[in-house]
């Protein structure tokens, strides 16, 4: 059914699926990463100097390893393939002939010279699912536009809406704020993996096809509620996009997120706060009245939070059924008892001497557990006989 019938993780969901990834952006690399985590054989075609992502920050001092690249490339293979040379293009053809999915993020204007244009690939590999992942897609008037994460988060509408809540209250005059890292590109990448697998699902009937994924589209898709609200006549803005009460609270030793949407959660919150006198006002039984007096409620909650230890608060809150969570640092996430129990992290060799830990996958398959990748591929570790 798939092209790669070798025994690569034979039990895994995508065992036997062969993916060729030609990436320079986080979006395309993340698509490949998700497929690799589920058992696909993913081969990165890298230029002789290596993928640009190999030197993308954050870097480890000393070794110069990119933590970003390590998080994206674990579980993949690396094959050096110089598409500026005829033999490199022949190698590409050889690889695509044996692949189910090809993921490429080359800018449109550079594709033809490298043998990567849609028409040529469709003609030569009619059974291949060819997925283009570009910042603004491969069609439409802005297909030639380029964008990095900061541009794309704002092009998709979410950037304009951040920060909100406490952070906005503290710094109302600062420019809008991006989400950490490569959030937009992860959305584009996961959408590309989804679309690739959907096209592959249709392949027995439809054959191969070309799939055009845009990071901007993906950001908009995850921010769809703001578009819905716009249709309702309300233009969201970071200054007003906050929960009427709840949100981020400073506690002793950290920050708490608190959100009570249901009446029973509100009652539980009052229990958590020790049934304070201000809450005896019976008009606060009405959720609309609470909404109107959100600032006042938050003022009281803030006073209480800052006087209590963050870990106590979230423990009591969860016992009482109040949705609350600690803002955990990466170190706390890595060491988290829950994460450990679920096997979320596994050792990852960055090179022969450096062992880190990395997330196995953001989903689990309980009947056939995913396997940790274990290592980051060295540049060009796979070798191929030069095609004749």
């Amino acid at each position, binding site marked *: 059914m798939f092209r790669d019938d070798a025994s690569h993780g034979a039990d895994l969901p*995508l065992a036997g699926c062969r993916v060729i990834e030609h990436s320079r952006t986080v979006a395309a690399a993340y698509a490949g990463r998700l497929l690799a985590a*589920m058992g696909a054989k993913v081969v990165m075609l890298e230029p002789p100097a290596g993928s640009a992502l190999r030197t993308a920050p*954050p870097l*480890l001092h000393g070794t110069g390893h990119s*933590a970003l690249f390590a*998080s994206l490339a674990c579980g993949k293979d690396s094959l050096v393939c110089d598409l500026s040379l005829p033999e490199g293009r022949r190698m590409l053809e050889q690889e695509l002939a044996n692949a189910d999915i090809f993921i490429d993020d080359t800018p449109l204007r550079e594709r033809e010279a490298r043998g990567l244009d849609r028409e040529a690939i469709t003609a030569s590999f009619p059974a291949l699912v060819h997925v283009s992942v570009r910042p603004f897609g491969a*069609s439409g008037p802005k297909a030639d*536009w*380029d*964008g990095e*994460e900061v*541009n794309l988060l*704002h*092009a998709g509408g*979410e950037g*304009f809406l951040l*920060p*909100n809540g406490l952070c906005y209250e*503290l710094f109302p005059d600062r*420019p*809008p*704020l991006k989400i*950490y890292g490569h*959030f937009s590109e*992860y*959305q584009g990448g*996961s*959408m590309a993996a*989804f*679309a690739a*697998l959907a*096209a592959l699902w249709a392949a027995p009937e*439809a054959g191969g096809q*070309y*799939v055009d*994924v845009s990071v901007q*589209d993906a950001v908009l898709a*995850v921010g*769809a509620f703001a*578009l*819905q609200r*716009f249709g309702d006549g309300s233009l969201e803005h970071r200054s007003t996009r906050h929960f009427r009460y709840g949100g*981020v609270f400073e506690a002793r030793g950290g*920050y708490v997120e608190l959100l*009570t*949407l249901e009446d029973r959660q509100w009652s539980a919150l009052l229990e958590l706060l020790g049934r304070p006198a201000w809450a005896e006002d019976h008009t606060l039984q009405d959720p609309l009245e609470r909404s109107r007096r*959100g600032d006042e409620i938050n003022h009281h909650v803030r006073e209480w939070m800052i006087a209590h230890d963050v870990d106590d608060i979230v423990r009591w809150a969860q016992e009482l059924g109040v949705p609350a*969570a600690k803002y*955990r640092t*990466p170190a706390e996430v*890595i060491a988290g*008892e*829950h994460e450990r129990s679920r096997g*979320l992290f596994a050792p990852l060799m960055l090179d022969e001497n450096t062992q880190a830990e990395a*997330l196995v996958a*953001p*989903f*689990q*398959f309980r009947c*056939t557990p995913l396997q940790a990748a274990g290592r980051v591929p060295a540049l060009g570790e796979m070798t191929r006989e030069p095609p004749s």
Partner: protein
Amino acid sequence: MKAPLAGVRLADFTIHAAGPFCTQLLAQLGAECIKIESKARLDAFRKPHAVYGRLSAATFDQVSVNKLSVRLNLKQPEAIALAKRLISISDVTTESFRAGVMQRLGLGFEGLRAVKPDVILVSLSSCGQSGPDSHFAGYAPLFGAWGGLGWMTGYTDGPPVEMRHVMDHSAGIHAAVATMAALHQRRRTGRAQHVDVAAREVASAMIGDALILASLGITPARPGNRHLSMAPHGVYPTRQPDRWLTLAVRNDAEWLALARELDQPAASSDPRFATAAARLQHSEELDTLLSQWLGACEADATAERLQRAGICAHVSWSMLDIASDPHLKMRGATTEVSAPGIPTRSAVGAPARFSKTDRVGIKRLTPRLGQDEEYVFGELLGLSAVQRADLESREVIA
């Protein structure tokens, strides 16, 4: 040609945002999604949310297109039996209750496997199906907090920042990816699968690089809008109030092009900005200068000019910009919808463009509660009108 997932059927028990967005994605690519709901316990997203400061249920439509709706009161044993029959004729069953709820309803994975040996059950929850926190309830901002993404997001000197609906929807896309993989696995092996997606772990995947650093004992900094290798990089004011320009300069050539486009010849020869390392070192001065220069510019025209010069620039767009953008419209990323009582409005369309299986996107809008029971209970399950009326009178279908 028809949609890529035509012929795939989902029995969809998900509620709120994350799970329904997963099944909406599958439905936008052609899967037949049967949403099982109940008047007795209405999806919170069909109800008004006072905490958001509004009275109407404004968010339901963006997670409900293309779906069919039936009612089943899952507190009734007969409803559970009907749910199992629906599951047995579906390819995938999806749910987003707290861990353990499906089990208590009599719809746990092993039980479903007994009625459908190759069942694919997709469970999307805040904390997953196992582990000490698996019983925790949560919403999108909590996923971001638990997963570490909230901590890493913020101004360097400020508090962590709340993730909003995007976190729900991101979990939904990841669940859709995993659902597709499980379908492929079943096609190949004929085996059942239980997919377990924890939204907080999706949030953790968004800080994969920071987690690797943390595992090595390094404390990753909260960078705000700064980038560790690009400068200038950030969000800058323009001549128009609250009309910001985002900018990312990746290398020396782009820096020189920027200086040229902004007519700043002195900057292009300033040694403080000659190399990437120098620009990073002087990034604060650079940001001050950029704010001055761009403060005299018209945002949209500048973005276009910079893009033509090969520089990554884009205006910080509100939904007003997005709803009227011809590029997004041409791609089908936005599409106009209307219905009786609902004026024409912009909605998010197909998640990707397919060259062959192109019948993707919005085909029908949010279903009324229970509107598809004649097809689902009548045609698919073979219940007569009399049987259905009886089940309704006894509040099994309710």
